[in-house]
């Protein structure tokens, strides 16, 4: 989750992981914001999510069958 693990979730993260069961990525953002208020404010501009190894732009996607979400710094380009 770098850099968000240390910036937001230090006390909750164990070996870089958090165990949550969100129904979609919006729900994940809400849950993460519940743990560390302020995360939701920066999620859209600064975060990319990868679901089971693939970067996902649709945050409404159902996560029922997903095994893992990786939280990444958003990278744009020039």
């Amino acid at each position, binding site marked *: 989750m*770098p*850099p*968000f*693990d*240390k*910036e937001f979730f*230090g006390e909750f993260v164990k070996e870089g992981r958090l165990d949550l069961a969100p129904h979609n990525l919006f729900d994940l953002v809400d849950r993460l914001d519940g743990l560390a208020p302020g995360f939701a*404010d*920066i999620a*859209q*501009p*600064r975060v990319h999510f*990868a679901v089971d*190894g*693939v*970067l*996902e*732009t*649709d945050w409404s996607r159902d996560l029922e069958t997903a095994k893992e979400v*990786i939280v*990444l*710094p*958003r*990278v*744009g*380009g*020039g």
Partner: protein
Amino acid sequence: MNAPEQMKQFRHVGTRPVRPDGVDKVTGRALYSPDFKAPGMLWGAILRSPHPHARIIAIDTRQAEALAGVKAVATGRDLPTLESLVMHVGEGASDIVDVSHNCLALDKVLYEGHAVAAVAATSPEIAREALALIEVEYEELPFVLGVEEALAEGAPILHDNVFTKGVDPKPDKPSNAAMRVEMGGGDVEGALASAAATVTGRYSLEPVHQGYIEPHACVASWNGDGQAQIWTSSQGHFSVRALTASVLAMPQADIRVTPLEIGGGFGGKTTIYLEPVAMVLSKKSGRPVRLAMTREEVFRATGPAPGAVIDVRLGAAADGTLVAADVEFLYHSGAYTANDAGAGVSSAIGHYRIANTRVVGVEVLCNRPAAKAYRAPGAPQVNFAVESAMDELAGKLGIDPLELRLKNAVVEGDPQTTGLPWGRIGYVECLEAAKAHPHWSAPLGPNQGRGIAGGYWGNYGGPSTVNVSVAEDGTVTVATGSPDIGGSRASMAIMAAEVLDIPYERVRAVVADTASIGVSMVTGGSRTTFATGMATVQAAEEVKRILCERAARIWGVAADQVEWRSGEVTCLDGEKQGQVMSAAAIAGRSFHSGGPIAAVAALSAKGWLPGFGVHICDTEVDPETGHVKIVRYTAIQDVGIAIHPDYVEGQIQGGAAQGIGWALNEAYIYSKDGKLDNAGFLDYRMPVASDLPMIEAVLVEVPNPSHPYGVKGVGEVPIVPPLAAVANAIHAAAGVRLRDLPMAPDRVYAALHPEG
């Protein structure tokens, strides 16, 4: 060099038709932002700070306001007070408060050239005269320019509300370290200790300019009814609208931004500098206002790519297997947070399989203009260090540098630094193409040497909107919200023509203003041909479906009894079987068969894949002067499928040329009093055509399975490998390892003659 797995044969994709905007551009008719005029327009000018760091005690504008011909004066007090809000700004996240204060400083100036006040007058001469009448009282503050100096104990702190992000626990003191990003895993120290060979090096680079020729400029007109128009060139007019509206605390729909042709951006035109200021001046004066930067202002007041200090340690087993990498870098962020550290960390070592890694990036605030995106932002700097170290490691191991790279190159399924698995990438294919290329085995002359380097960029997808419509004569218009920087109008027309199976000349692609098409993200991140192309294909497919449906209704047959063949509809049913109806025939009757034929596709594209490149460079080093001549250069790149190969090759050649300039000549040079000493193209030495050989671009096509035509972004990768390719070639030619850019003649000479 072509596709190992070409997906299918195309009629238009992969051809090289003339670009639709070409004639206007070569005949001087194309309208760029400094050329645009509006009726009744005033001329704006901006007063800039002479100090690199100072508190603004007072600004007295009374004399300027009293000057005949002056219609408006503005300072930071004329912009609304904003709450902190982090927005995705073009290519990275920025706090809108920082964006506002960068347009017009409020309490402090943070770099020489920081905007302090602005005037609008009836002539440029009066505007400049008025600037001289504005009195600003400053309290000068200590300043800091270098990243290591900015982190030193007792260094002047730029912002008392910036606490280093990415560290735990949260610091209790403000710092110039704006952000720290660390990724990796394994036992780096243990692996380095047991490695058969290790290399260690410290590398440095100065900030560099994107080198766009057209300066920033805009015209703004804020009408009495609250509606406003802005004419500007940028990499994203929707981004200009969103940012300007946010800075001015007004509804986005009240601003209509019309994109003008863009004379280069390369990442530097993904933000705003002038638009809110022109808007305020227009509102105050009641007239349209133009603001245009001089070249000097562009250098002093807009964002360069960050410079860096980078420490690298690599370790390998005796057979060349990389066992450990430890990379730590400090990037110049300039006056505000720039967000290049995450990209640098992601782009540092991910092109190699390494079991034990640690990559740390820190963004450091200093009294320079806020750094901005430049082609593959954050990647070339760290790649220079890593690919130079790879060359050194190959030398220590006695392994050919290309073979060392091949042995360790990532393939599909290997993990990236972030932990994600790589998709269908083409790094190995590029290395194999380099190995097979005649350049790699060509003989060298006296004082010549050959270098190689590889690199990559992640690319992007994201939001795009496209409207495909059919005129009554069957010709097709593709309207996008993506500014055309590298030939995207031609590429969109090619993809629409491919879907519709009609001649390229029957498709006209245009860039629509913010009131005429849905939102699109900036043209940047190598996303437009991929994402806007995907939307174009989707909208054209829908138009094709509508045309088939209309033909079926006109014929009175079931919709499944028609088929699209060779750009027209063929009937499969009954006595009409074999009859054809052209797009023109259908569109000509569209008003009486359901209405005009058009389709909009609005999507947030995913499935993008990174691009990989391998560059081979031959240099000739003059031992008497230290001058380095590039004698041959080949750039090999996995491009997915090239929609228009001319423009793909152009992107590769341009990126390589910019990278060579970064390697050999380019750097922002500051005086001891914190002022930029080379604010112009005479003193800021970019390569020109006579400095470079023909750059051969080799297209390796490993299609992206997620795109209808296999597209991968191509624009950013080519600036990544040149820095190290040139350094490695100099080492091969002259036996000296240069770790500080630019490798200008004085530095090369000093390395060749250490005795002095």
